[in-house]
């Protein structure tokens, strides 16, 4: 066991580790630049485009893709899909790390990051949806930490604390779903304040609903996608329960994702119909909208369905990748690509290479942290002392 645990550390010179260390070094250098020279020194942000990829990707996409935590834990604990139990911990860990690094990335983007708690200390800006997002993310990060704590406490051998934390599971799960519903939808609602800047095909009063529903898709797809990667990279850490249920979980989540995607596809059209924007579909932005609708929503829905019916796990895996890409495309569309669409292209935003490096840096840190923790704590396996404790 001991030998197995340490195995990944033995070969430090793997291609992944080498690329990761280059990214980390570059990330640290740009971090120093950012915090000593200011936003202007490293970003392409402008007065017209105050939000770049640190918001559009790191925050918007990051929060959506970290939805696996609440989706899996509610499926298992609230909706009675107990056979998914083994998938809860990896999903919670991903969620926790996802949110943690969303906050870290936010510190890069804020003009005065040390004032992050000001909304709660200085002025309760409750008329702002961003206040709601900040409030919910702060609380949800705490919830995720508590939901994750049994794994850490088992690792540390603190039985009493672990059992106490474990008893909170249902309460935390319910609280987590409430908070996720609120801030996932509010991220979409942020843009309701800017009807004149977001392209009408994406601007709709339904934005918060779209963001919430698509976060479910993101959560389900990320669990499937991650599962397939972890299955290869962390196989040695996986317990019998996880491995036995992996295929069942993939099928169950794929089925759910297919249906939610179908529902999402439908309500997206409702938005177009309600605003009467059919004629815009023939414009360039309209074509891009159709690409999102058919390429990133309808296609993965169909692929998931086919994969489930034919029990083809390869097809399901492809569907999960497309669905995740679809979420990324959608969040970038709303926050960057179709935002400020009225401006001439010379005044539009495109990220600087340093902004991109920081975003890649954040993703790398998440992967490294995940690997570090999953290699030590009982994430994919049940701790031997608590086998019958479910």
């Amino acid at each position: 066991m001991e030998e197995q645990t340490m195995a990944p550390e033995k070969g430090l010179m793997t291609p992944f580790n080498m690329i990761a260390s280059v990214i980390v070094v570059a990330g640290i250098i740009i971090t120093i630049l950012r915090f000593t020279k200011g936003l202007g020194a490293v970003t392409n942000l402008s007065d017209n485009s105050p939000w770049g990829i640190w918001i559009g990707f790191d925050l918007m996409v990051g929060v959506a893709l970290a939805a696996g935590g609440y989706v899996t834990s509610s499926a298992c604990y609230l909706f009675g899909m107990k056979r998914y139990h083994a998938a809860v911990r990896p999903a919670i860990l991903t969620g926790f790390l996802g949110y943690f690094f969303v906050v870290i990335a936010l510190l890069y983007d804020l003009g005065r990051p040390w004032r992050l708690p000001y909304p709660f200390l200085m002025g309760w800006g409750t008329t702002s949806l961003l206040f709601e997002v900040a409030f919910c993310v702060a609380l949800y990060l705490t919830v995720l930490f508590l939901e994750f704590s049994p794994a850490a406490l088992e690792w540390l051998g603190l039985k009493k604390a672990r059992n106490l934390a474990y008893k909170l599971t249902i309460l935390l799960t319910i609280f987590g779903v409430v908070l996720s519903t609120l801030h996932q939808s509010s991220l979409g609602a942020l843009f309701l304040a800017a009807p004149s800047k977001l392209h009408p095909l994406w601007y709709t009063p339904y934005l918060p609903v779209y963001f919430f529903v698509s976060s479910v898709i993101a959560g389900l797809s990320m669990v499937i996608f991650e599962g397939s990667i972890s299955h290869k990279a962390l196989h040695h850490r996986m317990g019998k329960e996880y491995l036995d249920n992996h295929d069942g979980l993939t099928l169950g989540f794929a089925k759910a994702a297919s249906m939610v995607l179908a529902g999402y596809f439908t309500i997206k059209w409702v938005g177009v119909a309600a605003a009467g924007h059919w004629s815009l579909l023939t414009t360039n932005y309209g074509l891009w909208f159709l690409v999102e609708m058919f390429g990133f929503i309808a296609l993965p829905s169909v692929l998931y369905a086919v994969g489930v019916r034919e029990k083809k796990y390869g097809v399901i895996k492809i569907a999960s990748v497309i669905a995740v890409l679809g979420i990324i495309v959608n969040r970038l569309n709303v926050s960057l690509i179709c935002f400020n669409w009225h401006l001439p292209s010379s005044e539009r935003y495109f990220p600087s290479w340093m902004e991109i490096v920081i975003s890649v840096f954040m993703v790398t840190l998440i992967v490294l942290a995940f690997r570090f923790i999953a290699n030590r704590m009982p994430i994919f396996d049940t701790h031997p002392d608590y086998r019958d404790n479910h």
Partner: protein
Amino acid sequence: MSLSRRSFLFGLGAAGTGLAAGKKASAATGKEFKGYPDSYGVLHDISRCVGCRECEKACNSVNDLPAPEQPFTDKSVLDEKRRTAKDTFTVVNRFEPKGKKPHFAKIQCNHCQEPACASVCFVRAFKKSPEGPVLYNPDICVGCRYCMVACPFDVPAYEYDKAFTPRVRKCNLCAPRLAEGKLPGCVEACPKEALVFGKREELLAIAKERIRKHPNRYVNHVYGEKEMGGTSWLYLSDVPFDEVGMRTDLVSTPAPALTAGALGVVPMVVGLWPVFLTGMYGMTKRREKVAAQEQKAAVTVAVQETEAKAAAELETRLAKADADKKKALEKAEKEKEAAIAKALEEAAAEKAPSEEDEATTGDEPANGEDK
């Protein structure tokens, strides 16, 4: 005035939409905020502007802003369309509408009646003062720049070059000068009376009067009367407003109303989601319990059936065994008898040696009893 404190989660409930404390405006109350009655504003008559940039110069000077690279007398800067920036709170742009003489239009913060920047700020760093100006407080600003995202007029600018003390920058309608009884810098400097300062209500009346007097000269629209719920700056023009770089597709909904619906759902989610989810959990639990009970019942029945079956089988087997035993006993008896008979016969035939043997055999059980 300040943003009304409508909170969510902890009891206060309701949608946070209002902007005017005292006269609370909210989608939840069904009342409408019509702006502060005596607030000031400026009327900009675009048809009168000659693009002299005196307003820019005055603005730069009264706000102690750094001198621009090109002097204010340099008209070549007008060749490019500009916007407000961190050290430029107002700019004049030149437009050349088809078949007409060049037109000039000034931009700066429009000081909305219900500002988007104030509505979206999560630390309430912006406030609309009853006198008209929308004021910014850099001491609490976190620098999220949501105000810049939300501003429909693309006015606020940010000090991206500052690492430690970046601020949002924009026109404050010369609020400090107004307090001293002075005019805003730009208004004071305008040589063509293209800018008129006064109470918004009166400016609106003046604007409408000008349109009424010169219906052929002016476009029949006072820009800012209704745009985004109304602004403290009002505009008149002799060419369509979109030809002088102004957004004519803005909604007349004030900014807070745009997000009121989404904010109003928050307390509903907080209130109802736990009920629904606990219900789901309860149903799941119940289903599991019923399933467990059914399973238990099924097991009991199965056990009973199996037991009965086993008992029956045991009985038949026992009966069979009994019969077999009997048969075997009988058979053994017969065999024994036959053997004895046979032995007797043989004994009778062999006589002497066999008599000794029989005596030994017969003694053995007796020996055992003695022990």
